[in-house]
């Protein structure tokens, strides 16, 4: 197209020239689309959802195969090490029993306290249960593909959690599958607090599967290794009291934490309704994250 003159043929010369124009048009169209997807990411919700409906089911089907293979290998590994594991489990079981009795007592006490305070519990209903079947493994962003979509009631903005902890929130919803912005993505900022002491902190992903946690108030570093970070419910996007991560390393003014819900090992993910839909609609409309 931009190659040297192809000879004396006018036809060939025009052909080259028009293909050059076509490529330049391609660049321009690409830049315009890119600008639109950065400035007004909602423009492409429909087409993104349609693409998810193509890749989601493929990923789901392949996931079954790999999960079975992994299960076979893991199962064999468990037999290999059975005696030691058995001893360990017995020890853990004993410790857990003690903790359980304590927890039951606390629950009872909590119920009495709440009754006296006349607190009404918010119902924690689940919209859909899906599996994490894929991820954005070739991008600096951290997304995961969830095997449930609009057909199951999933909508953009809904929080996603697993039994272990917070996974993220839905940012693209197709009919059959949806895309989740993981808590380890740099653009996912979760208002949180320390389980020990309830100090308010901010959790922000680091893009590599870990999370940065910073205290809201500047001053002494409140973190210790092994601290659990839970959501605070501030902002209304995520429900409160969902565990997010465990602190593994301290740095100057905060700490690095590891998400408790590892998307690679999460068997089921629960999609929940937005905690306070009105607040979410107001807050996410201008600051909707572009994928």
């Amino acid at each position, binding site marked *: 197209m931009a190659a040297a003159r192809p000879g004396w043929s006018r036809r060939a010369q025009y052909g080259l020239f028009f293909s050059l124009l076509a490529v330049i048009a391609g*660049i321009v169209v690409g*830049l315009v689309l890119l600008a639109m997807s950065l400035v007004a990411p909602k423009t492409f919700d429909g087409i993104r959802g349609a693409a998810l409906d193509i890749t989601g089911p493929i990923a789901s089907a*392949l996931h079954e195969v790999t999960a079975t293979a992994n299960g076979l290998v893991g199962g064999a590994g468990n037999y290999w090490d059975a005696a030691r594991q058995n001893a360990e489990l017995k020890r853990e079981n004993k410790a857990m029993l003690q903790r359980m009795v304590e927890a039951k007592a606390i629950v009872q006490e909590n119920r009495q306290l709440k009754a006296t305070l006349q607190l009404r519990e918010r119902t924690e209903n689940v919209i859909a249960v899906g599996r994490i079947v894929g991820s954005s493994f070739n991008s600096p962003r951290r997304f995961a593909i969830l095997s449930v979509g609009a057909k199951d009631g999933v909508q953009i903005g809904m929080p996603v959690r697993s039994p272990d902890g917070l996974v993220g929130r839905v940012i693209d919803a197709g009919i059959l599958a949806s895309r989740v912005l993981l808590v380890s993505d740099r*653009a996912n900022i979760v208002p949180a607090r320390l389980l020990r002491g309830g100090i308010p902190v901010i959790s922000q992903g680091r*893009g590599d599967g870990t999370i940065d946690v910073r205290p809201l108030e500047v001053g002494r570093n409140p973190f210790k290794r092994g601290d659990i970070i839970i959501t605070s419910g501030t902002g209304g996007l995520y429900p409160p009291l969902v565990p997010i991560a465990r602190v593994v390393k301290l740095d100057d003014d905060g700490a690095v934490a590891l998400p408790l819900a590892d998307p690679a090992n999460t068997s089921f993910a629960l999609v929940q309704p937005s905690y306070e839909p009105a607040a979410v609609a107001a807050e996410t409309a201008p600051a909707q994250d572009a994928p």
Partner: protein
Amino acid sequence: MVRAALDSRQIGRGPSAFAAYVPAATVVAASLLAALPIVSNSGWYPDFGYLVFIGWRLLRSDPWPAWWAAPLGLVNDLFTSYPIGFSVALWSATMLALDLIDRRTMWRDYWIEWVLAAVFLAIDEWMQWQLAAVVGADLPFTTQLPSLVIAILVFPLAAWIVSRTDRWRLGR
């Protein structure tokens, strides 16, 4: 030579029926690799679609009409969760840049092609990093380096697969 030409396997074999569409189809197939059920906490896998795309373009100057770069890029954007328009612009620009480079280079060998591919892959990673920063995910560039090194090391493999596919589609 004559004897080789008379080898029974070679006679009567021409280009396959869809030879003109095979290169574009392999690029789409590579983009679809994003649907693999890999759940990774680090984005270290290469941009498969772009690897195969520059593999074809470095092997031949006309694997597809130049304007096909835009729709192929759109397919890649849709399957890989990149911002829509990113691959459209980058892939079209790659076609243009490689045509200009073709006019300048005196000779080509494997090393030059690898260096060219490395430069384009670095531009790809750098632009992804820039775009992530624009939408609020500003990470240090060092987090992109492993993925770039892996992509550069994987390129010869992609180029080999592309050249085998090329021989197959032309019936050689």
